[in-house]
């Protein structure tokens, strides 16, 4: 964009970029460094795994994440396909009605969610986390999926129809295989929401055997003084799966995200 660059300019770029990035890097390095301090990395990380119900919480987080991803993906692709490729009365109205959910602060639903969960007897049931979480996430994933699926040429859909495919067959055999980037985005995004959620499990899963990973750091917090290095070791372990997933899917993730975001 800026034409040819001299060595001096190159240096200036590198320095400015580094100065901009350092404040972002510093907390990340500090978090890992603190997790290694105190009794040392081995003792800290072993303590997190052995002195807390770490693996139970890990399994719970995994189950909740898998359920949330499956529900969000199924619901999003079905609706996204219809909104992008099928014509029906009230299409725009229904789409906009779902999009209202984008604006909604989920804390505004806390009082009713509490009552609904109690009425349905869903306390200590993973569904009490999966359903609200999916409901507030679907508006965004649907918007991204609809925009992405709009880009699949209608001719492809028509050809499948001429070959005798039902609309569901078209979705499963033609559209979904063409939707890998957006699939990656939806899965990563749903995983993020489920894995990172703190308040819904805290409110609705009060049985300690059902708690999730984001609660692990609390085990080293007490009124008598917290064991900071172990809290940070727990933080690193909680965040690691997310970071690894992002690094593995980085290309897909950015491609899909920006495909939906930039016209």
């Amino acid at each position: 964009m800026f034409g040819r660059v001299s060595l001096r300019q190159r240096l200036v770029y590198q320095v400015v970029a580094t100065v901009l990035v350092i404040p972002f890097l510093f907390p990340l390095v500090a978090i890992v460094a603190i997790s290694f301090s105190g009794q040392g990395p081995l003792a800290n990380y072993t303590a997190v795994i052995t002195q807390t119900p770490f693996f139970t919480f890990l399994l719970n987080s995994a189950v909740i994440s898998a359920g949330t991803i499956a529900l969000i993906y199924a619901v999003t692709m079905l609706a996204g396909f219809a909104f992008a490729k099928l014509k029906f009365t009230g299409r725009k109205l229904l789409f906009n009605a779902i999009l209202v959910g984008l604006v909604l602060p989920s804390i505004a639903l806390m009082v009713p969610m509490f009552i609904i969960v109690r009425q349905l007897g869903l306390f200590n049931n993973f569904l009490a986390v999966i359903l609200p979480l999916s409901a507030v996430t679907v508006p965004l994933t649907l918007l991204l999926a609809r925009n992405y699926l709009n880009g699949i040429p209608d001719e492809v859909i028509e050809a499948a129809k001429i070959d005798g495919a039902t609309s569901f067959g078209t979705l499963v055999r033609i559209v979904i295989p063409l939707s890998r980037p957006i699939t990656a985005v939806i899965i990563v995004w749903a995983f993020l929401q489920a894995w990172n959620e703190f308040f819904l499990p805290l409110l609705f899963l009060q049985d300690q055997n059902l708690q999730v990973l984001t609660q692990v750091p609390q085990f080293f917090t007490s009124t008598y003084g917290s064991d900071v290095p172990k809290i940070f070791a727990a933080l690193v372990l909680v965040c690691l799966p997310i970071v690894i997933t992002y690094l593995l899917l980085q290309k897909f993730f950015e491609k899909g995200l920006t495909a939906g975001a930039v016209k």
Partner: protein
Amino acid sequence: MTMSPTLDTSDPEDGTGTPGDSRARRGHGHPPTRRPKRRGGRTAYLYVLPALILVVGVVYLGIGYNGWVSTLDWNGIDPNPESVGFDNYVKIFSDSIFWDSLSHVAIFGVIVILVQMALGLAMALIFSGPIFGRNIYKIIVFVPVILSPAAVSIAFRQLLSPDGQVNEALRFIGLDVLTNAWIADPKTALIALAVINIWQWTGFSFILYQASVSQIDQNLYEAAQIDGAGTWRIIRSIVIPQLKGTHATLALTGVIGALKTFDIVFLVTGGGPGRSTEFLTTYIYKQAVQQFNSGYAAALAMVLLVLALTLTAFQMRAYRFGED
């Protein structure tokens, strides 16, 4: 916050179709055919139904129920709540904590939106230059976006404590004057929350700007260079105007995000010290869960919701979304 990277909510079928299409066909001697696809018929509703049930079931039912609760004087448990009409709403307007919370959200929102956009754009431009290790720089800036707000909050409580790593780093580079109790000081607590939010969310602005910068027509730069424009001039007169859509998207998602912010405020400062960082969301939580004022909390939630919808509608009109 939840981010919504795109605001292309426009319907591609609305008049912007492909007018050239039918004419071209006619030119080849075919009758103008109406496209046969898209006859979803009734089955189309079956595809949309799960999403509708989920969103209507949780979101709309929730809002409706919330609206009803907001007319009650209720502790959330009593089987016979007392109806008070619009009293809760009247109370809100003379509640100084409500107005304080609102001003905190506004200050926080303005700071984080402006700084995140400026930093994100600066990074998108500089990282598009000749940078060694560009991908690592990108990952460093984006990783905070994906971390759990709960984890980030716990981490920053420590980093920003009086003898925490941020003050240590400031002392190390000789900026002792800037050391502060940050979250424990009512004068800096709101700024500290803004800094945490900026740290976590700048990567999002950066990724969006990066994608849209890469789509600017290269010929525009060449033409400008031939006309003798320098780098600054190109950024001011070409890049910034060309990125209008991205600025608007980020401003809009930023406003929604600021109104939604809850986790980091609640977990880092809990709205304190005193009420110095109370947000509408934390105030709602406290009223509902700690004070058992379900009716009042529900009324506050309705005000928050109306505020979010109004600001969104107003901005979408101002930025003319879905019209280009």
